[in-house]
């Protein structure tokens, strides 16, 4: 990648501003489709909990119009197995690893972060997942109560000395306030955001598709909503915002960046296009060249400077 894409976000130095979002790509890079590593600036791990979790029963994936509902339920082997088996593999991918952590109690969170400390060299950042809609206790509730969020971030800040990111919930009553609370708690970046709470009904069986009834909506369908949330967050905090939600084509990542995101995470779109990180990078490079800019950092938030006069321009 060209050095024009190099950037630093929330304490992490990235070769490109394109991050693989949590929970969508194998933890074993040997399973990655050929070429899919290209353009990837960092990789988020699958949401990890202190103890292993089997995840949810029943259906886990339902396609919606230009979107996907998922109810994986944070299936993961727990922190010890992660450290022993998965982290070394991810580290081997040659890409910085961001560890996504989910927790029910502050105590769990503290313990996980303590364990991760000894692997500081392999973990460029911790991404606090306060937003998973698919677990009955914990998970999202941290992300929808302002005080809980503040206390969780502050405690994580005390334990974890490396870069600390918070991945916000779109279900937060106000994205701006929750981003601010994260910043005040000591987060170095906010990821905006996780999946949007949705559901689907199996008309034949006359029941919700998912055992948990609700599930998280991701994919192209949510792009306009995520973009709005990024715009709001970027207006509310000084720390970097990382845009996540619905990016499906290279121009979508550019939109996120122009709206104020310093980097982007791509998730669902990798299900259908493993080459997306590379094409986003090409798009960004071409855009910089066209504008004679030296760094992707100069693109961040440029759409926020517009002034009046619009009118539609056709043809």
């Amino acid at each position, binding site marked *: 990648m060209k050095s024009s894409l190099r950037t630093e976000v929330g304490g992490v130095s990235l070769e490109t501003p394109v991050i693989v979002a949590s*929970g*969508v*790509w*194998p*933890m*074993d890079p*040997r*399973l*990655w*489709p*050929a*070429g899919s590593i290209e353009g990837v600036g960092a990789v988020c791990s*699958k949401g990890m909990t202190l103890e292993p979790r*089997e*995840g949810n*029963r029943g*259906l*886990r*994936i*339902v*396609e919606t*119009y*230009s*979107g*996907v509902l*998922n109810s*994986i339920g944070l*299936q993961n082997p727990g922190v010890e197995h992660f450290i022993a088996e998965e982290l070394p593999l991810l580290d081997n991918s040659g890409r910085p690893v961001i560890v996504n952590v989910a927790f029910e109690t502050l105590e769990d969170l503290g313990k996980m972060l303590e364990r991760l400390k000894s692997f500081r060299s392999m973990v460029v950042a911790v991404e606090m997942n306060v937003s998973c809609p698919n677990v009955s206790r914990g998970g999202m509730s941290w992300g929808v109560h302002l005080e809980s969020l503040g206390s969780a971030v502050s405690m994580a800040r005390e334990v974890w000395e490396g870069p600390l990111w918070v991945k916000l919930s779109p279900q937060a009553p106000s994205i701006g306030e929750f981003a601010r609370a994260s910043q005040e708690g000591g987060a170095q970046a906010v990821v905006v955001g996780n999946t949007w709470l949705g559901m689907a009904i199996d008309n034949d069986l006359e029941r919700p598709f998912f055992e948990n009834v609700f599930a998280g909506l991701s*994919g*192209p369908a949510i792009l306009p909503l995520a973009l709005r949330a990024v715009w709001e967050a970027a207006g509310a905090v000084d720390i970097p915002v990382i845009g996540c939600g619905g990016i*499906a084509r290279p121009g979508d990542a550019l939109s996120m960046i122009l709206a104020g995101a310093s980097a982007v995470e791509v998730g*669902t779109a*990798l*299900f*259908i*296009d*493993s*080459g997306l990180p590379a094409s986003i990078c090409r798009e960004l490079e071409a855009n910089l060249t066209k504008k004679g800019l030296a760094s992707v950092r100069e693109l961040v938030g440029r759409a926020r400077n517009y002034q009046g006069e619009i009118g539609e321009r056709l043809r």
Partner: protein
Amino acid sequence: MDRSGDPMKGPPADRRGSISFSRPLGDHCVHMGIELEGLSSKAIPGQFFLIRERGVLDPLLGRPLALVASEGNVLEFLFRVSGRGTARLATLPPGAALELRGPCGNGFPEPVRNELVLVAGTLGIAPFIGIPSFCSERVRITAVLGVPGKGWEPFVEWCSERFTGIRINSDDGSIGRHGDPVEDTLLIVGQRHEVWGCGPEAMLRGLGRVHEKGCDRLLVSLEKRMACGTGGCLGCSIRTGSGSKRVCVDGPVFEWRQVFGGSHEI
């Protein structure tokens, strides 16, 4: 199909293709050829591809379809028009642009026995189509197929051309034997046989109930909804006797016992 180059070892790739032919087999099924851009793709029977239309984001996800044959750059598939995605696929004319991710999954191994019985519920026959040319000649193959009945004649005929001596069973008795394919296997399977099954879960369970101890090896190819096809999303996880497995990368072919053998729910 071709076993060279150890196709099972590498991860799948995303490829562009376009429909080269699309032939209905009765009202329910389609036999489709897809021409890949660039080099052909090596795969073994039981492996599959996630197939979607290029350029649209609705329907979004690739549909998993077993590869039935490949001829140069053209991959062949056989599918049932079941929901929205396959219905759409069935209406696309030749030339329509597609995207394929694959080959995914482990595929079938070399049979350990010389007597191989393939048991399929309707489209469960798809991953077996390539087996005859894939197995060494020592292996004697018997295919056992179950279909609902009326309307499935063209499909049955198509399958019959590919398996000499195929045993047909239909629910309504209108084609072949009246009954289900699992019962039918009772007439032929013994200790020296290896049995592979693909079809609805109930059929696969039944297959094991009658043959688990009575044959030498019992393999099943499973179906689960998939998003990534690469082992990342955990959408296709099942619980097995040896822990959680992903159908897309740890399967779709499993030992029957591993999946259905224990008291665990899958």
